[in-house]
């Protein structure tokens, strides 16, 4: 499968804005698209959906040309589905009506159950809260059989509580899609837990593309410091300790404890560790509340623009990253090759849900 997008288009707006893209987009798993407001994220999705007609742009999906020099396939004939920023429910139809109206849509009963809409099904959109509306929009988009999923900041219009409430459902929908998902968002925490791939856009260009942690580490962009991704470690699940509500994992010879039960994540658990939550110690610190102490070897030291030092560490052949002050780095006399210990509070750890 492949998704090729190629072309330049002047959106004719003022100040002038040009979308200029030549990329093969990932066609497996979940691709997060981030970038400052107005960088062209929505424009890119609209292009893929065929909502804006720019024929000098070429889009080819799975060997199928959706648009090109003399080809134009209108949006309703593309095998896509999309969840927009605002729910855009049809105001004249009830929740049930909104679900049923999808041409060739799947089983509405299933969707109602899955998205917890049973009690809302007779209500009209103007009687739903923002979060409920977005939930219906997700269910509706889910009903359409599609080969490419797109989400354009589906949680952006919600308040923090509603957002926290809905985020797991969105993540679950994305994973369950079983099709490539392109997920545009401003909220990094929202997407980094589930993204396999990160696209960073700026001024109509794609300026970064790859695994989230790599992109974040190597991109000089105002968003980079906000991408608190740190690193992701692949760990083996050992067992869940019910009495402390902690899961015990293992990386190399060291134990890693994380909060909650991650048994259902499978044998391998990916743990996301923000760089600022990693402290370093020259000797094994005894008798502290820090549960996770990993023996590591320094591979690299770099100074970040804000004066902090980023320390790249080798941990059982995986990379872990720490952010510390220059004073600490000096005092500890850190240098490449030195063998030290990384301390990570377990309350700071998040399993990646994928």
């Amino acid at each position, binding site marked *: 499968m492949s998704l090729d997008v190629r072309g330049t288009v002047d959106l004719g707006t003022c100040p002038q804005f040009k979308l200029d893209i030549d990329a093969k987009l990932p066609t497996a798993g979940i691709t997060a698209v981030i970038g400052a407001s107005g960088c062209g994220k929505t424009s890119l999705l609209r292009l893929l*959906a065929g909502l804006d007609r720019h024929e000098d742009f070429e889009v080819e999906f799975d060997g199928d040309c959706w648009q090109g020099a003399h080809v134009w396939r209108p949006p*309703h004939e593309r095998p896509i589905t*999309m969840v927009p920023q605002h729910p*855009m429910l049809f105001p*004249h139809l009830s929740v049930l009506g909104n679900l049923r*109206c999808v*041409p060739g849509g799947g089983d509405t009963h299933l969707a109602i159950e899955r998205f917890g809409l049973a009690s809302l099904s007779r209500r009209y959109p103007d009687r739903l809260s923002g979060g409920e509306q977005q939930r219906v929009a997700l269910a509706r988009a889910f009903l359409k059989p599609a080969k490419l999923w797109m989400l354009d900041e589906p949680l952006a219009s919600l308040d923090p509580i509603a957002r926290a409430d809905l985020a797991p459902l969105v993540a679950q929908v994305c994973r369950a899609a079983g099709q490539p998902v392109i997920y545009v968002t401003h909220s990094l925490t929202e997407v980094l837990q589930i993204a396999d791939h990160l696209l960073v856009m700026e001024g109509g260009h794609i300026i970064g593309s790859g695994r989230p942690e790599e992109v974040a580490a190597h991109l000089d962009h105002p968003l980079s410091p906000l991408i608190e991704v740190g690193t992701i470690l692949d760990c083996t699940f050992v067992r869940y300790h019910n009495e402390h509500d902690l899961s015990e994992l293992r990386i190399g010879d060291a134990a890693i404890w994380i909060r909650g039960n991650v048994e259902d994540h499978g044998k391998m658990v990916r743990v996301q560790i923000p760089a600022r939550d990693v402290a370093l110690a020259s000797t094994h610190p005894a008798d502290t509340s820090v549960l996770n102490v990993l023996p590591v070897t320094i591979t690299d030291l770099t100074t970040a623009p804000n004066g902090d030092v980023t320390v790249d560490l080798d941990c059982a052949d995986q990379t872990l990253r720490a952010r510390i002050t220059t004073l600490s780095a000096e005092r500890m006399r850190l240098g490449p090759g030195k063998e030290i210990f990384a301390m990570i509070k377990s309350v700071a750890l998040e399993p990646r849900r994928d």
Partner: protein
Amino acid sequence: MNPDLLQSLAVTASLAAITTACLMLLTPPLAWWLARTRHPVRPLVEALVALPLVLPPTVLGFYLLLFMSRDGILGGLWHTATGESLAFTFSALVIGSVVYSLPFVAQPIAASFRTTEPGLLDAASVLGFSPRQRFLRIVLPVHRRALLAGAVLGFAHTIGEFGIVLMIGGNIPGETRVLSILLFDQVEALNYASAHLTAGILLLISLITLTFTYAYLRRES
């Protein structure tokens, strides 16, 4: 009530009903085109549609008369097709009324269509609605109140129309003599008592329809 009044009332009511029905078939697609197109010819079409608003009805009636007479284009075609002449028939009145009331129906509907949330149509597109399905299943029901308002205005306006009917309908009792013409006749005949009654009926119908429509429209919004 005298038979003249009853007869005119019947003609008026059926004219208004048929005209409104024709308008409601014609205008939504036209209004949708007007609301959406960026074609450079749109302002001209818009002006043409609005023309009956500003043209004296007698001018319009005069040209419609020329147009629908047996030597006119439409009248000629009609004659060839049906073997009858068009001018001074009820059908002619319907055509004239449709032209005359067009802006009253098309403008509020187009104005409402213009407010269509584009995101709603985009959402429908990506869900697989064809343009035709979008129009019939989203646009029309979403703007049902504007459609109603247009229909009521068109109906009321057809009831009140005068200049055109006078020109192209003549004043044939039971066929083309509508209430407004009856009123004109009564004033001409110095029959002021009847005139006040007819005018009162017209006024009442108009005022009641308008008041209820406006009250309904605002209550809903």
